[in-house]
C-alpha cells in the first residue's frame, strides 16, 4: 500500500549486442544528410537542399533500388487497403460514422459498409439511417478493415465480416503504429487466456476470450456480464506487457506479446508497472526472440 517513490533516473541505452541485426541500421534525425548522390529519387520523409538529400523526420532510411525514403518511428497511421484497425466513433453523420483511428484525418465508416443485425442483405432505408445511433454511438469502439483510401488521404472502413464490429468489454492500449508488425492475421486468441486485436493503427484491444463463438451477425450486441477475476488478471498483465514492449520499442506481434507475458509471470501484476521490472521483462523477451530467430 506504500506509494512507490523514487528519484528521477536518466534513461539507459539498450545494449547493442542484444539487438539482432545483420548490418547497422541507418538511423537519421531531421536535418541529417542521407546522401549526396543525386541519382536517387526521393520518397516520403526526405527533401533536397543544395544537391543533398536530407531527412525531414526521425527514423530509419529505407532504400528500394533508386527510391530512398525515411520511415519514422513515431508517426500518425498511414492506412493501406486491407489493414485491420481498431477505432473509436467520434461523430454520427448522415449515412456514415466518423471514426478516430490515430491517422491524420478521421476515417469514414459508411452505413452501407456495416453488417445489419440478423445478417440480412438489403438496401439501407431511411429507417436504418434514423436508427444509426442504436447501432454505433459516439465513444463506441469498433474493429474494421480499410476498404479504400479517399483522395485526401482519409480511410474508408468496412465491417463486412463477422469478425469485425462493435467491441464489448476489454481494455484499449495505444502504441505507435510503427510498432505493430504486419502479419497475416491480427486477431489472436492467446494461450494465456485472453484475446487480442493488434490494430495496424497502433490501437491494441485486449478482451476476454468469448466462451462460444456468437451466432449474432454484425456483432452489435455487447454483454455487460462481469468478467471473471482470473480473466481480468490475464488482461491486466497483458496490458502492462504491451506498455512495456512499446516503451522499449519492441515490435508487437503475437509471439513477442506471449513471450513478454510469460516473462512477467515471475512478478506481481502491479509491479510490472515499475521501470526496472519493465526493463527486465523486455530484456528476457528480446533474448528469447533472438534465440527463436537464430
Amino acid at each position, binding site marked *: *500500500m506504500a506509494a512507490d*517513490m523514487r528519484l528521477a533516473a536518466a534513461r539507459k541505452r539498450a545494449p547493442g549486442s542484444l539487438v539482432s541485426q545483420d548490418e547497422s541500421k541507418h538511423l537519421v534525425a531531421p536535418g541529417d544528410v542521407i546522401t549526396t548522390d543525386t541519382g536517387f529519387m526521393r520518397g516520403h520523409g526526405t527533401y533536397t537542399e543544395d544537391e543533398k538529400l536530407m531527412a525531414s523526420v526521425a527514423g530509419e532510411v529505407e532504400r528500394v533500388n533508386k527510391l530512398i525514403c525515411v520511415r519514422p518511428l513515431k508517426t500518425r497511421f498511414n492506412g493501406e487497403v486491407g489493414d485491420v484497425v481498431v477505432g473509436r466513433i467520434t461523430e454520427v453523420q448522415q449515412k456514415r460514422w466518423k471514426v478516430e483511428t490515430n491517422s491524420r484525418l478521421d476515417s469514414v465508416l459508411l452505413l452501407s459498409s456495416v453488417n445489419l443485425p440478423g445478417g440480412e442483405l438489403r438496401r439501407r432505408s431511411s429507417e436504418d439511417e434514423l436508427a444509426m445511433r442504436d447501432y454505433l454511438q459516439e465513444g463506441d469502439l469498433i474493429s474494421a478493415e480499410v476498404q479504400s483510401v479517399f483522395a485526401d488521404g482519409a480511410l474508408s472502413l468496412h465491417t463486412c465480416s463477422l469478425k469485425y464490429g462493435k467491441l464489448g468489454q476489454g481494455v484499449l492500449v495505444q502504441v505507435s503504429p510503427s510498432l505493430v508488425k504486419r502479419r497475416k492475421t491480427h486477431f489472436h486468441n492467446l494461450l494465456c487466456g485472453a484475446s487480442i486485436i493488434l490494430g495496424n493503427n497502433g490501437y491494441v484491444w485486449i478482451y476476454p476470450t468469448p466462451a462460444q463463438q456468437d451466432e449474432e451477425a454484425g456483432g452489435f450486441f455487447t454483454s455487460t456480464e462481469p468478467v471473471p477475476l482470473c480473466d481480468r488478471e490475464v488482461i491486466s498483465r497483458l496490458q502492462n506487457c504491451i506498455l512495456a514492449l512499446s516503451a522499449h520499442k519492441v515490435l508487437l506481434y503475437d509471439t513477442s506479446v506471449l513471450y513478454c507475458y510469460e516473462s512477467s509471470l515471475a512478478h506481481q501484476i502491479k509491479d510490472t508497472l515499475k521501470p526496472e521490472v519493465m526493463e527486465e521483462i523486455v530484456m528476457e523477451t528480446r533474448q528469447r526472440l533472438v534465440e527463436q530467430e537464430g
Partner: protein
Amino acid sequence: MAAVQMSEAEKVYIMHGVQDDLRVDGRGCDDYRHMEIETDVVSNTSGSARVKLGLTDILVGVKAEMGRPKLEKPFEGCLEFFVDCSANATPEFEGRGGEDLGTEIANTLYRVFDNGCSIDLKTLCICPMEHCWTLYVDVLLLQCDGNLFDAISVAIKAALFNTRIPKVQMIEDEEGTKEIELSDDPYDCMRLDVENVPCIVTLCKIGHRHVVDATLQEKACSMASLLVAVTKKGTITCVRKVGGGSLDPESVFEMIETGKRVGKALHTPLQEILRKEESLGKKRRKVGFLG
C-alpha cells in the same frame, strides 16, 4: 481537465474491476502509480521540484521575495499560489482554456494551506509590520494523466523542502533608520520546516467503491470525487468534493478514513527520498528534462 471518450462496455469493465479490487493496470484500490521526484531543477528559483506520477508531469518553482506583511497578520509572511496549465498538456489549455482549471487548483491550495500549522509563517517575518518574506509558489502542469492534485501537493512539499531563503538581518542606525543586511556567504540560508505540510489524496467514487490515484479512464467512470488534505500526523486540513454526482454520508465517512490512511502513508517515503537526495549533495547527477 482533459476528458477521454469511452464506450459503455469499457466503463462497465472498469467498474466491475474496481468492485473486485483489481484495476485495469493490476493495482488495488489503494495503490498509487510509481512516482519520480527530483528537486532543484530550475536554477533561478529559491526552490523547485518536478514530480512525475504515471504520465502526469508537474513542475513547481518557489521564489522568495521581500514584501509587506498583511495588515491583519503583521507578524507573519505570506504564501501565494499560482497554477499555470500549459498547452503542452492538452490542446484544450491553449490560450485561456486552462485558466478555469488553474484557478480551481490554486483556490484549493489556498484552502489547504490556510491554517496555522502547515507552514510556520512566523519564521518568514523579518520586521513586524514592515518586511516579510513572501513565497510565490508557481505550479506548471506539463502533462495531464489524471490525479493532478496529489502530484501537485507532493511537488509543493518537495519544492518547499528544497527552498533556501537567504538569511537577512535588520540593522538599526543611530538615527533610527533600519537597514536590511544580507550575509556575504551565498550558501548561508534558512530552510523551511515541512514536517506538517499536507499532501492531498483524491478519492474517486466508482460504483460502490472508491479508488486512489485514478487514471483518466477511471475518472471518466466516476461521478464524484473527494479531495482530502492530510498531514503526516493524520490531521485533515481540507476536505473538498468535486464532480457533478452526489455522495451519501456513509461513503463520505469511509472515503475520509481511507484518505487519512493513505495520506499518512505518503509522507514517510517522501521524506526519505528527499533526505536521500539531499545527502547525495554535489555528487548527484541532475537528470532534468533531457535525461
